[in-house]
């Protein structure tokens, strides 16, 4: 189907402002009398703060206040909780005398200038009585005094379907472990709060994935009414999950309330790496039962997540992983055990894919290792096991959608020339310095919350008197083009140019309550809401247009900002005419209030294929070829989609080869909280990336669209790991596959 805007490459709507350096991010903001905050962090991984001496700090010219556990609320809250009625571990306070990791918050200085705040913060003296500390889940389980009074260890009830013990098949065991990594969004976290004591109104500006989550936490902590706390989402310089938790906002809100003036907290890179959130280190064991026909009959999975110092979202993360094991292959019996263990390390939490990448890695590692052991082609092995289209999910029963696994595998196999490559690699010189390998992985994800929790998109679409449109919808664009996609959907329906449509991002003063930018719901849920609201608006335009044109609505058509009689196009009126007519003779305002509640959630399938080259002398790996096949339903803006996939590849390569937060074994301190020693993959190291979109429209998605943003992150790591293992004829299962690790494995084999 040929559309005007849908399916067309488009620059994101604020590209010009970004290219000019004029887009104002939170850290670029400046308010009159704005003060600056700097945190004082614990240098000790576990201890009780016996004394905090603030006199020297307070004496620095320009210092306005020093916040400590003694002059700030002691209310516990949870940084991951969006709605106040949600169950959450709630173990944190704004500042704490019981510090639980090196980087935990003890105090903060607020000053007139950033330099004064920096200088003063360095002069706050703390005395800490150390407590025994644990830096791994194994050690944490042996601590005499748990890290928290309760919920230091959360063991999930076993999730199961079928009966693993009853299944008949060969037992195959495998394990995978992953490391702590940081998101490296280019924009370091920032939040700005302003409290007006005269109106008792709090305003918070923050690049967040949930304005309502921020409001909810701030109101809990400060005891403020929600209708006088306004949270505004600022443009986001990347997130990948790191900006979905409420970390900086309660701090600045507290300071703003205390001082009655604006307070900004801008983290530097080190603070982002220590004090926000990192991906969970994870250890997993898998037992699989596979029958003689190579069908996987049962999976028993055991996962331990290192939650870091506070549980926050970790139990939820662990819990959602269960069902993700059942979405790809037709496995009758699955048993999933997991625990989330607190350690005295930086807090673990949200990362792109919410456990999906970990599940894909664990599952695909197992599949690839088994295929390798049995001499099976990995793609053929998958084809034997994939779920048929429109299967029901296990654990939570709902239709998983068209699941074009077969198409993705076959298209990818052909396009990547998998068989030809396999043949070529089979004759490579195995004594040579460089060894080449092939790998692939298959996965699927979500396009929203349904049916796990209620999901909805509440949108107000209003037509201004001049025929332009404003959309009021709680959107949190990461910078990846959500706003542009939503505008395109409205533009396509209304046959206006996207330029005639304006969409402001999340603002609790004007938006209806929203779940937040999670689980890749923006296009499938919010986009559908926009589409349906646009269609409702068209009905109104036709209704009033019929009056103006003296013709029945069925005889009308629309285009170019006009409604006209299909058979007599010269009988026309503009949207503006209709808006004024409505103001004089109709309902008054030309506005639609629409609530979309999805009852479906198609899994977007992804299949990745890659070839790598490993240097046996230095252990370094180069990715030479990469193909990503994605079931997007309908790419709303293919250029944005391609960028999403490319960024997932870069991040996945980092996850597999070189990214790792290093902890000092003795002190638990992070050794590399900076970009010199935390390595990300650079422009010169990326392979040429081929992308194939399979567009099988989903019945319920806007123009058939499913999701992509997180889905593309899932298969990267397992595809790369498989390729390295193929090259070396090994089964490396511990990430990262660093040069050191590879050489160590090679020398142990000798």
């Amino acid at each position: 189907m040929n559309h005007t805007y849908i399916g067309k490459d488009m620059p994101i709507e604020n590209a010009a402002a970004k290219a000019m350096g004029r887009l104002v991010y939170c850290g670029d903001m400046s308010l009159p009398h704005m003060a600056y905050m700097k945190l004082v962090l614990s240098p000790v991984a576990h201890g009780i703060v016996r004394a905090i001496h603030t006199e020297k700090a307070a004496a620095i010219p320009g210092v306005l206040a020093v916040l400590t556990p003694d002059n700030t609320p002691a209310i516990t809250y949870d940084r991951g909780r969006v709605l106040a009625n949600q169950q959450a571990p709630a173990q944190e306070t704004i500042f704490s005398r019981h510090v639980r990791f090196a980087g935990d918050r003890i105090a903060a200085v607020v000053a007139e200038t950033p330099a004064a705040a920096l200088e003063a913060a360095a002069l706050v003296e703390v005395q800490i009585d150390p407590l025994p500390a644990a830096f791994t889940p194994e050690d944490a389980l042996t601590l005499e005094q748990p890290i928290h009074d309760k919920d230091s260890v959360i063991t999930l009830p076993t999730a199961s379907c079928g009966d693993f013990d009853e299944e008949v098949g060969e037992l195959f065991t495998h394990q995978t472990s992953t490391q702590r990594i940081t998101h490296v969004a280019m924009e370091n976290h920032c939040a700005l709060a302003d409290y007006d004591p005269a109106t008792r109104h709090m305003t918070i500006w923050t690049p967040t994935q949930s304005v309502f989550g921020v409001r909810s936490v701030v109101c809990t902590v400060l005891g403020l009414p929600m209708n006088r706390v306004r949270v505004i989402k600022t443009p986001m310089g990347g997130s990948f999950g790191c900006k979905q938790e409420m970390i900086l906002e309660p701090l600045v809100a507290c300071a703003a309330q205390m001082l009655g003036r604006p307070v900004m907290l801008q983290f530097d890179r080190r603070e982002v790496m220590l004090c926000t959130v990192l991906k969970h280190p994870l250890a997993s064991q898998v037992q699989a039962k596979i029958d003689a026909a190579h069908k996987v009959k049962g999976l028993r999975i055991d996962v331990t997540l290192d939650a870091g110092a506070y549980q926050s979202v970790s139990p939820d993360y662990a819990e959602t992983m269960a069902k993700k094991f059942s979405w790809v292959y037709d496995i009758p019996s699955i048993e999933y055990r997991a625990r989330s263990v607190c350690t005295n390390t930086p807090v673990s939490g949200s990362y792109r894919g919410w456990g999906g990448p970990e599940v894909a890695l664990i599952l695909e590692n197992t599949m690839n290792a088994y295929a390798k052991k049995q001499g099976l082609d990995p793609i053929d092995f998958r084809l034997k096991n994939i779920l048929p289209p429109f299967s029901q999910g296990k654990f939570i029963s709902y239709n998983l959608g068209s699941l074009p696994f077969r198409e993705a595998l076959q298209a990818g196999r052909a396009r990547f020339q998998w068989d030809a490559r396999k043949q070529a690699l089979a004759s490579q010189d195995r004594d040579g310095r460089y060894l080449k390998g092939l790998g692939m992985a298959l996965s699927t994800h979500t396009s929203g919350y349904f049916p796990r929790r209620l999901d909805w998109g509440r949108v107000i679409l209003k037509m201004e008197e001049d025929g332009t449109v404003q959309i009021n919808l709680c959107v949190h664009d990461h910078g990846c083009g959500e706003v542009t996609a939503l505008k395109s959907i409205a533009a396509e329906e209304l046959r206006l140019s996207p330029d005639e449509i304006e969409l402001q991002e999340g603002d609790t003063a004007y938006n209806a309550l929203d779940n937040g930018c999670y689980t890749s719901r923006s296009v499938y849920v919010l986009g559908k809401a926009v589409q349906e609201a646009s269609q409702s608006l068209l009905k109104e335009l036709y209704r009033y247009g019929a009056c103006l044109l003296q013709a029945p609505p069925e005889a009308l058509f629309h285009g170019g900002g006009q409604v006209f009689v299909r058979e007599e196009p010269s009988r026309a009126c503009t949207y503006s005419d209709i808006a004024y007519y409505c103001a004089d003779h109709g309902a008054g305002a030309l506005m639609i209030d629409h609530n979309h509640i999805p009852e479906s959630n198609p899994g977007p399938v992804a299949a990745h294929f890659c070839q790598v080259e490993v240097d046996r002398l230095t252990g370094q790996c180069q990715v030479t070829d990469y193909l990503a096949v994605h079931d997007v339903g309908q790419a709303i803006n293919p250029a944005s989609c391609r960028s999403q996939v490319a960024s997932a590849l870069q991040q996945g390569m980092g996850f597999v080869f070189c990214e790792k937060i290093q902890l000092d074994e003795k002190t638990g301190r992070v050794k590399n909280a900076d970009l010199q020693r935390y390595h990300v993959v650079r422009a010169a190291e990326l392979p040429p990336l081929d992308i194939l979109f399979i567009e099988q429209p989903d019945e319920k998605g806007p123009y058939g669209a499913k999701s992509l943003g997180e889905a593309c992150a899932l298969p990267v790591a397992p595809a790369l790991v498989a390729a390295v293992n193929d090259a070396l004829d090994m089964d490396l299962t511990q990430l990262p596959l660093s040069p050191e690790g590879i050489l160590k494995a090679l020398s142990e084999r000798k």
Partner: protein
Amino acid sequence: MKLRFILNGQAIELEAPPEKRLIDLLREDLHLTGAKEGCGEGECGSCTVLLDDAAVHACLVLAGQIDGHSVTTIEGLGKDGDLDPLQTAFIENMAIQCGYCTPGMIMAARGLLLKNLDPSEAEIRNAISGNICRCAGYTQIIQAIQEAAKAYRKEAQL
């Protein structure tokens, strides 16, 4: 210290501590917030500006060191209200996502094109290896720089 330098083509005078970092001078004193601080240690490139037409990290330059020199920031690109070909190319090639790396990336690219009007893909990748983009994956960025190079070459011929 009294700083006298050319900023985006205009001679200016400014009083500032010589040990202040250029990134802070730009953002705080001159209210030019296009250059961003992503790491403070010369690793991410989001603070890239031109110092005498060479790409440098503004987080690693002392304010005193710009005295007598010329500084160009993203805000200084384009003339007579038109965007620079690099800016246009970045927009039209969909090379911009979250935009945080964009000003630094464009300035690094400009530094390259001011020395080399016909860079190879490898030379482009090398020139931007000091700029981290986590959103877009570089393919479209490289295309944009190649397109801008063409426009620069055309202008040079005129």
